[in-house]
């Protein structure tokens, strides 16, 4: 049997805060993502979602545990993983076209092949006509679409997304979710998607990991057995969707209550 696209085992990550106190951001987290699988992580703010994702990208060093991509242990960032951040990370001096082309710098493809690929992705994200626009001429949603294309164009094994639609308004967010499902339909790969929006997690995912409050552990895992392709309008009013949503909201709410029980002094520290 194939090894999973991403395999995290017994991962723990600690940070030293300013006053030398140790903060455990992620504690003993194990999870697997198979190739072609869309998996989300939800959890309250500060529970270590970003830290976990960054570790998978090779941007944080774990104190304990292993991360494997396609069976290989992760030590550095690399082109087998694509990453989309919540903040806008396009290169402001490059146009849409050049931004996407930039991530192919290390690719062995020939120039015409690269150009064809970039054009294909521009079409896929619906930004024909904006090839020569600079990032500050694009809306927030458009920028994230370019960021997604830029992370997919070099054909990573797994796409890591950290609240990529968090800064967008509700309307744009929804069309971005549709676009992402569309894109994912065309290029099946493993996706690890961090969000704290329960609906978003249900709409997109095959499976959802719920994280507990700090120190971040995996609290539960939920299989989302909703048929694909998913049309957002129909989906959001279906009883199955609503029951998933309700179930998850309950789980999250328990975590938020727990948060309020922490004495104030400890929160500040």
């Amino acid at each position: 049997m194939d090894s999973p696209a991403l395999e995290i085992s017994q991962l723990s990550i600690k940070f030293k805060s300013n006053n030398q106190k140790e903060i455990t951001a992620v504690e003993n987290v194990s999870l697997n993502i198979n190739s072609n699988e869309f998996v989300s992580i939800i959890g309250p703010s500060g529970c270590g979602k970003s830290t976990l994702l960054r570790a998978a990208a090779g941007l944080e060093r774990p104190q304990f545990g292993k991360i494997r991509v396609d069976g290989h242990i992760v030590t550095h960032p690399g082109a087998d993983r694509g990453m989309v951040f919540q903040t806008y990370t396009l290169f402001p001096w490059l146009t849409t076209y050049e931004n996407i082309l930039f991530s192919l710098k290390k690719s062995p493809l020939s120039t015409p092949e690269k150009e064809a690929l970039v054009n294909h992705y521009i079409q896929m994200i619906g930004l024909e006509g904006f090839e020569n626009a600079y990032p500050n001429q694009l809306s927030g949603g458009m920028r994230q679409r370019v960021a997604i294309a830029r992370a997919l164009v070099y054909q990573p094994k797994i796409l890591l997304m950290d609240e990529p639609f968090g800064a967008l308004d509700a309307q744009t967010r929804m069309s971005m979710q549709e676009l992402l499902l569309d894109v994912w339909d065309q290029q099946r790969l493993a996706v690890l998607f961090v969000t704290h929006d329960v609906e978003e997690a249900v709409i997109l995912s095959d499976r959802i990991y719920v994280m507990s409050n700090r120190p971040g552990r995996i609290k539960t895992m939920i299989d989302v057995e909703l048929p694909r392709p998913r049309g957002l309008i129909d989906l959001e009013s279906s009883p199955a969707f609503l029951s998933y949503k309700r179930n998850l909201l309950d789980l999250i709410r328990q975590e938020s209550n727990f948060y309020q029980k922490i004495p104030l002094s400890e929160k500040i520290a």
Partner: protein
Amino acid sequence: MDQILSVKEKESSESASYRLLDLRSDIPSRIYWSAGGLFFIFIFILWLFLTSLKIVSPLFLPGPEAVWDEFLRQLHEGILLQDASASLYRIMLGWIISTIIAVPIGILMGNFKLFEGMLEPFIDLIRYMPAVAFVPLTILWAGVGNSQKILILFIGTFFQEVLMIMDNVKSVPRELIEVSSTFGLSRFEILRDVILRYAMPGIWDTFRITLGWAWTYLVVAELVAASSGLGYRIMKAQRFLQTESIILGILMIGLMGLITDMIFKFTYRKLFRWLDGKG
């Protein structure tokens, strides 16, 4: 109907006058530049007024016509061109040497904590020392020739410039560097293609500002043992109470500083069009 129209007219004229003093809002460039020009004219008229009505003595402030005459005299005798080119040469050389060293060191300090930790305390210490205080030392080290003047300009510029370039380099958002590393780029490639590209407009602005500072150190640089230069001319004129020559020198330094400043501003707009989204 008429009423509605007039209300609308009123609104639009009101909003136009409002816009002039709106917080941070753009105004027509015509108005922007005229305001600057008018202010110059205002200062000039004030100068003319104060001197022609003999409100201040010409010993302290000679009138524009006296300064103009001095300008023509120096121009005809060839002193002016000689002074200006001597000063420009020293400024450019001092600044270029400073820049050639400051850029790599600033980049190292901005990217590697090791270099920041090693060099910043030392540079912080020196940059608060007044350049004038170095004049005797520089004479001991470099004699009384051009190199001493250039050394003073270097000292006045370099230590500030390094720190500014370090800050320019640090202004690159961490995520931009991180996302580049996920494309498989090496550290050197990220440094060259991402960090420096992003920091370039800021560095260019640092060039502009530090060159401006070099001009302000000119008089200090030409304080001792000079025989030409705008700063030297000013110091000499002071001994003979030739106030118009002092003012002419000051104006020349200001003007040449302004020109170099404008060259950098102009090239900035040409080089970094992506900043306002025009390819």
